[in-house]
């Protein structure tokens, strides 16, 4: 199976955000791979290896990203995890919106002809959650979003995708080629079954660590450069962010003298009881 995976770099969510007027100041940001994209890479690797036989590769994983040159670092780390090669489309975050990203991935899909496109369900910075859906629409491919499990079925012609919905787990069958976006439980020990690795195999929970050998091997793997122009994607940003504001500072609380006063305040002021 040939899989295209998208990967975006996002600011470390643990880091305090800084503001410059009504926009974010990203000058001192520590960048890292969007967690859901890391999970997508992990799922892609699990789909294309035989974990019962020394993780022998059985397919190809191509990781694509849109961003500045520095994103090479995050792409390199996915190659170290085991992905086969990467494509970096030169762009800056300010000049991108979900439409441009989805159109770009569409072009790459047309070039690479993968059997499956795996995406994180959302990027931790914008939380837009729409590239996968748009991409499936543009391609006219079936889609399954928020996957918590993936199982290869029909001799590799389709996937059974589990989705955690309010009432329980819904299973969707999508015929390949397809677009799947992954949720966090996709990296559970037995969430991905590719029909090659023994069905009883249990992975360590979470995305794999790049092995030292993998890190050395990643040095020799290619990260191909591309651009919106080269792919023929119109670079007009149509989604405009009106403003970004910090959450209001928390107001100081009040001390109450008695239980009666507390009850009275909860009832009359907070109106919660």
């Amino acid at each position, binding site marked *: 199976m040939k899989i295209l995976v998208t990967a975006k770099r996002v600011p470390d969510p643990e880091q305090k955000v800084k503001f410059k007027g009504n926009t974010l100041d990203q000058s001192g940001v520590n960048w890292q791979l969007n967690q859901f994209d890391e999970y997508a890479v992990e799922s892609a690797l699990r789909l294309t290896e035989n974990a019962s036989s020394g993780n022998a590769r059985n397919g190809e994983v191509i990781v694509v990203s849109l961003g500045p040159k520095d994103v090479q670092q995050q792409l390199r*780390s996915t190659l*170290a995890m085991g992905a086969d090669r990467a494509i970096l489309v030169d762009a800056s975050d300010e000049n991108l919106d979900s439409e441009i990203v989805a159109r770009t991935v569409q072009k790459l899909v047309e070039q690479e002809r993968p059997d499956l496109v795996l995406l994180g369900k959302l990027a931790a910075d914008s939380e837009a959650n729409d590239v996968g859906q748009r991409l499936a629409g543009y391609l006219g491919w079936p889609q399954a979003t928020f996957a918590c499990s993936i199982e290869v079925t029909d001799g590799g012609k389709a996937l059974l995708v589990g989705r955690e919905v309010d009432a329980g787990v819904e299973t969707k069958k999508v015929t390949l080629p397809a677009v799947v976006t992954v949720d966090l439980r996709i990296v559970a020990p037995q969430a991905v079954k590719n029909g090659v690795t023994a069905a009883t195999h249990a992975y360590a929970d*979470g995305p794999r*660590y*790049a092995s030292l*050998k*993998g*890190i050395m091997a*990643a040095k020799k793997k290619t990260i191909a450069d591309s651009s919106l122009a080269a792919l023929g994607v119109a670079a007009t940003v149509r989604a405009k962010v009106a403003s970004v504001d910090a959450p209001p500072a928390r107001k100081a609380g009040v001390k109450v003298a008695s239980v009666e006063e507390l009850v009275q305040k909860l009832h009359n002021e907070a109106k919660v009881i």
Partner: protein
Amino acid sequence: MIDFTDEQKMAQRMLRTWAEKELVPLVPAMERGDVLPYDAMRHLIRSFGIDEMARATFAKATPGGDTNAGGERGFFGGDPALSAIVAIELSRVCPGFALAFGASLGLAGGAILAKGTAAQKKRFALPILTGEKIGAWAMTEPGAGSDAFRSMRTIARRSGDGYILNGQKTFITNAPFADVLVIYAKLAEPGQSENERPIHAFIVEKGAPGLSLSKPMEKMGMHSSPTGEIFLSDVCVAKSALLGETETLPARDRAREVFHGERTGMVPMCFGVIDRCLELSVAYAKERQTWGKQIGEYQLVQEKLARMYMHRENVRNLLFKQLEKAHKKVTISAAEASASKLYCARVATECALEAVQIFGGNGYMREFTVEMMARDAKLFQIGGGTDEIQITAIARQLLSE
């Protein structure tokens, strides 16, 4: 080299993530002695494919031949920067864990890789590198520490084709739970005075009749690293247990090489401790307020931070010099290794104690990492040759030149 390469930095980021995610949650239980460090060691080895790398180097080695096959290269693919990064990242989180790991793979595994026969490397070093077995390296005795060679009482007597070992070792890292022990002993030759007796290393396996291993000793720091005693009472070993299987090259020189390794190996551990203490101290100095000001605004606190920073930069420079020399295969003189270890050990202790000071009462509480760091750092001034022994070694070389 003044910095790690991009690949090495990636390895460092992965190890930091591993340490924060997998090791940090275990530290309190390991420090209390409720959990041993060995499962986490195996997890580390597996997660980063250290086992796979070791197996690959051994598989490449020509079967049966060449004693150097799978030599030093078995360890992190032969990249000393990678071993340094592992030591730094583990020490940043738990120096005791780093010590247990280093004593098994670096000291015991390293001694066998450096001097063992091809068969010994395959049988004993490989399982240590893959984490299947835990190694211990035993030199120190109750009556022989700084003067380990001179005062060693553990003795090997020839018996048929093999040897009989008698004696006692103490303060041995991993001894209570070790599977493979590299034990130094004097070979008793008739008509030789005790001082002339050559010293050899023997590989003894857990369960050998006459071998007993103590429970972990209670100590000041490095609680995550079990330390114990070894008792040898008529332990019979075959000729194949003699490290290198030859009596012609006495082990004194070889053990000195391991001492050398122990000294240079401590530099990255010291760096890890200082780096973490500085990081924690800067964060605390920005957060803690007295008289309505961050304590970092007081010059007395600033001086501590600046000194810690200065020491960290010096230790970092020493580390990169050492790595550059290792990379270029330039030998480090005994005085140079001693001076490095002496400086790094002293400033690691100083920085960790100053970190406790910056944290005030919190710094004295077990809940705060700097409390552990301060107790752990003291070991650097004792293990691998005390400060005084390093000073003596430096002076000896200076005055003999």
